[in-house]
């Protein structure tokens, strides 16, 4: 079983090495290789769920990797979304060119994220974060249009700021503890007992700012509404669905629940930043007329929900936050892939020019309804349950005001997603698009998979919660 961890790590890079030869053979070979390379880690991850127990460790050429429930939850998210995006990309990449390179970079990104989740060393976490980030910069610019390259540069600059902050933070931690290995760090820092040393407080602030930038939490969000929309659709889906969660939320969770000693103010900061992001993201999303920009702002808003759940400090809030990570990955990538399908056929992202597309693109239309209802938190879709847990957690923590705001924002979310539905899918067909066809089969298959996942994880929320979310939340509570 432990060897699965090695395969999860190694399959994508091996496929990357083979990719140049595969794309020589032809598009079909590159497609097959890419789908297999993205599918195998998913299969291994799913098979690890029942075998996990108290955690697994694995040694790869002397390098230590370990898996616990928290990593497993994020691994499932990463590989499930990556698989859907890869299936989608096999069709989508046709109009971009550079098929093999696209797949290779996407697989490198997946490797970086998986390795981040499996490593047990703060510096390695940083290194793998860079691996994933470099692949994402290039992928954002992959369309090679002016706005894509510009926003890639913006993304890169702000990420460079973020990673330098993180690096300084790591340095401070190393100065204090003399090690960077998670377990040893936790033990070394927890032993102090008294007030938290000033160096660690500074490090905590640097981590919040650095990883907050990566997660696009409100005051640090400026790059996201540019980078996510201008990227090719499967990359937008990966960035909004997965990368901000792993690079931002996962890192924050690892550091503040288990490594650094408990700092009371951090929770308050999470709550404030979370509430700010939740509200501002939704308000800004409301005024967008670009399909993907609206989705990008809504990601900021949903990250706010997750941060609130983390800041509540009770098990219910953590369950809600982690489940929302899972759910948001599914429905946000679904919506981005939908928007990509529309853009692929129409060549525009301006919702004012669309209308009644569901008659011509029934699969895209129907699955986008699933995504809309999930993100607005309409039961029985998955988004409802995670928001419910966050709200119940907020009430249990005595944060009635935040619970009320969370409820209001979910109403607001439904409001702006109904605008998308009304202007894009639901209504009379705009005559301009009379001859539009449904997106190609692979793209439709990917969105059907994600939409089904949204509904099924909603209906069987208890299996998901009990199976992979709650164990993770329990570990975080215990480590706190």
């Amino acid at each position, binding site marked *: 079983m432990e060897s699965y961890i090695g395969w999860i790590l190694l399959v994508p890079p091996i496929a990357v090495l083979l990719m140049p030869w595969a794309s020589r053979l032809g598009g079909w070979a590159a497609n097959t290789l890419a789908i297999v390379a993205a599918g195998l880690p998913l299969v291994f991850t799913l098979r690890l769920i029942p075998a996990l127990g108290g955690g697994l460790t694995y040694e790869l050429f002397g390098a230590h990797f370990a898996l616990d429930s928290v990593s497993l939850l994020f691994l499932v998210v990463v590989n499930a979304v990556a698989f859907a995006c890869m299936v989608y990309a096999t069709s989508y990449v046709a109009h971009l060119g550079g098929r093999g390179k696209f797949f290779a970079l996407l697989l490198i990104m997946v490797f970086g994220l998986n390795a981040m989740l499996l490593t047990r060393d703060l510096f390695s976490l940083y290194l793998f974060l860079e691996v994933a980030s470099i692949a994402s910069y290039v992928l954002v610019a992959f369309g090679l249009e002016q706005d894509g390259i510009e926003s890639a540069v913006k993304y890169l600059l702000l990420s460079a700021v973020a990673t330098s902050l993180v690096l300084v933070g790591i340095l401070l931690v190393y100065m204090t503890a003399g090690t960077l290995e998670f377990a040893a760090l936790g033990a070394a820092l927890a032993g102090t007992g008294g007030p938290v040393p000033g160096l660690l407080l500074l490090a905590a602030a640097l981590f919040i700012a650095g990883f907050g930038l990566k997660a696009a939490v409100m005051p640090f969000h400026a790059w996201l509404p540019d980078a996510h929309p201008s990227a090719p659709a499967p990359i937008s889906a990966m960035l909004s669905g997965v990368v901000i969660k792993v690079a931002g939320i996962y890192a924050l969770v690892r550091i503040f629940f288990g490594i650094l000693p408990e700092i009371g103010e951090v929770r308050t900061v999470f709550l404030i930043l979370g509430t700010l992001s939740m509200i501002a993201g939704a308000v800004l999303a409301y005024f967008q007329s670009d399909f993907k920009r609206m989705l990008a702002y809504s990601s900021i808003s949903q990250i706010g929900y997750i941060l609130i759940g983390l800041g509540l400090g009770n098990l219910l809030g953590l369950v809600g936050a982690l489940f929302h990570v899972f759910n948001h990955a599914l429905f946000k990538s679904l919506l981005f892939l939908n928007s990509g399908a529309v853009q692929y056929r129409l060549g525009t992202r301006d919702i004012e020019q669309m209308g009644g597309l569901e008659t011509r693109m029934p699969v895209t239309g129907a699955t986008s309804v699933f995504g809309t209802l999930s993100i607005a938190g*309409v039961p*029985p879709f998955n988004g*409802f349950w995670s928001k419910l847990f966050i*709200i*119940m957690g907020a*009430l249990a923590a005595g944060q009635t005001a935040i619970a009320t705001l969370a409820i209001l924002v979910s*109403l607001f979310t439904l*409001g702006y997603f109904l605008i998308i539905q*009304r202007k894009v899918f639901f209504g009379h067909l705009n005559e301009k698009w009379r001859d539009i066809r449904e997106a190609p089969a692979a793209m439709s298959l990917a969105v059907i998979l994600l939409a089904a996942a949204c509904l099924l994880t909603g209906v069987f929320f*208890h299996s998901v919660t009990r199976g992979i979310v709650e164990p993770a939340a329990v570990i975080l509570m215990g480590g706190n």
Partner: protein
Amino acid sequence: MESQALMVILVPLLGSLLIPLAGWAGLRKATGPMAVLLIGCSHLLTWPLLGPALAGRTGESSIPLYRWIEFSTNIDALAVFMAFTASLIATLIAVYSLGYIEHTEHEPEYYFIVTLFVGAMMGLVFSRNLIFLYMFWEISALACWRLIGYFRDPEYVWKADKAFLITFGGAVFMLLGFALIFTQYGTFDISELRGKEIGTAALVLVMAGIFSKSATVPLHTWLPDAGVAPSTITSLLHAAILVKIGLYAFARLFCNGMVIAPEAQTWLLVLALLSAFVSASAALHETNIKRLLAYSTVSQIGYTFLGLMVFTHFGYIGALLYIMAHGFAKGGLFLCAGIIEHGTHTKDMTKMGGLFRKMPVTGVSYLICALSIAGIPPMAGFFSKYFVINGLVEGGRIAIATLAILTAVVTLLYMLKSFRMVFLGESRGEAHGEGSPVMVGVVAVLAVLTLASGFLLQLPYDLVKVADGQRLVNIVSLLWR
């Protein structure tokens, strides 16, 4: 009994998923009969529940899912009564749809959502856990969204969004209210909340949800706008499912469950009366037939709330009977409006007139249903209105009872006005004959049901009496505590 109730929920809920599949498989023609079959099955499955319910037996079942979330059901006379009435009307409307919705563009979607809608209603009626009550509540809201915008005109879709946003907004506040109740009592189980007093904040939040769903002034504006939906759907919304959800939730949560403080009760009664009276006046000035009927619904809902909120025997019995009587009559009226709209291609009553000769069956049915709503004996509407007013007097609310009678007079006025404008006098526009036999047949059946439920009032009365008995037990056990 428990598994029976589960079947009533699951047959339409899961069965509805087959309909779009059939649509994609090219069996468009089959989707209509499939929906009728599923909804009809669901209705037939409630028949065996009537016997035990009449005998006063109750049942409960529970599947724990996660922490305090359980899928639990509660089968008693109230639930069986609601399920029976709603599914009966829904079946008739589904049959009528076969004639009405044919040749429109999105037929499979229509039947899919309608069946899902009925399934949600059944689930809501039998739910014992507040979270699942909320869940079915929202499924019905999203069904309503797709159905109101069914004809896809920009204005229609906008109105569908409005309806969705108002009912969703009310419902999320209700959810917050439920959460507040949970923080106080630590449970979402309705039967465990029985006899507990609800806090003011939670009450306001829960009532926001109930009033938005049951279109009570000032949260009623979406309901007249929803008239842009196909007539079958407006009929379904008004008569069988949607607005009845709020009434049922009130009966379940407050008549059978939590206790409201007396001052709050007075406020609620005044709100309900206001809603009944204001919307009756609005109906008096309306010339669009579907909007007139919609305002009438708002008014009758207010009436029913009066019966429920006074917490007396007569009030409760009257309110439940009124849910049924209004369902049959208003369902019939909207289906009549559908036939009229098909025949004249307008909803404006000033362009109709003299239709009685061309549509005799529709005309007679319309008259019977309108008189039932207005409360003329021997129709069922009369008895239930009488019971409600009697209940108000029984509860010592004489002033409110007087104003309620005044509202009934206004109701008679606008109902007769609409009948005169549509069916009597000179013809003022084009008019074809009756609708298809299926459609006219269904309308006639509803008219007969309206009459029969008046003459044979004893049958529903017995069941409602049992429901009232079960309610009383709760209150008595509360007093003993």
